[in-house]
């Protein structure tokens, strides 16, 4: 799975893009965020409040219960502020 981080999520995690092998039991966005939180203190802090992050799966906006699978491109970012 390819995971991308943007804006303060990129800064807090220290990662902009990575390829990871996620455990088979991770089946949805919430499961993925829970798994990422366990990695280290930076991830735990960045993902402490799911309400403050948005997720896209294969470049489509996703919800916490949206499915994720190996091979997906998942992006994690704050609410958008363009325009």
């Amino acid at each position: 799975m390819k995971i991308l981080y943007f804006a303060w999520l990129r800064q807090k995690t220290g990662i902009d893009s990575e390829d990871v092998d996620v455990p088979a039991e991770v089946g949805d966005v919430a499961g993925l965020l829970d798994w990422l939180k366990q990695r280290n203190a930076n991830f735990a802090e960045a993902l402490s409040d799911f309400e403050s992050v948005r997720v896209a799966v294969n470049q489509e906006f996703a919800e916490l219960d949206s499915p994720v699978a190996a091979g997906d491109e998942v992006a994690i970012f704050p609410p958008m502020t363009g325009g």
Partner: protein
Amino acid sequence: MTVKVQSEDFDVGAELERLTRDNHNVGGMVSFVGLVRDLGGEDALKAMTLEHYPGMTEKMLAEIEAEAQARWSLEGSLIVHRYGRLEPGDRIVLVAATSAHRQAAFEACAFLIDWLKTKAPFWKLEESEATGARWVEAKSSDDLAAARWRASQEKAAE
């Protein structure tokens, strides 16, 4: 329908000229230009850096334009959005809509910028003398502005 995502500045006149040239069905064009604002005061803005999600940005802007085309009878539409480091007074975004009649163009232009703000994956980092760099937080007023178009669509569907 045109979408451009670029770091370089754009020429508003040339972009709008391209949108209407040789299309005599166009009776009106409405455009909006967003600029980097410095509200002044003690915490003067030095720069604003726009980050985006290459690939998804272009896809979302194309979807937003397609939605505008579905809702209004348009002759054309345009979104040009910059990324990278910008300074106060710099242009950030240009949206425009053309139609046979002005009302569709006015409404579609407002819709394009309102939806873009909440649906296009851009993030603004502000740098100021006093507080350093900070990420701009999404505004609930932007969500409300976008939601009014959802409400108007439901009303139209009744």
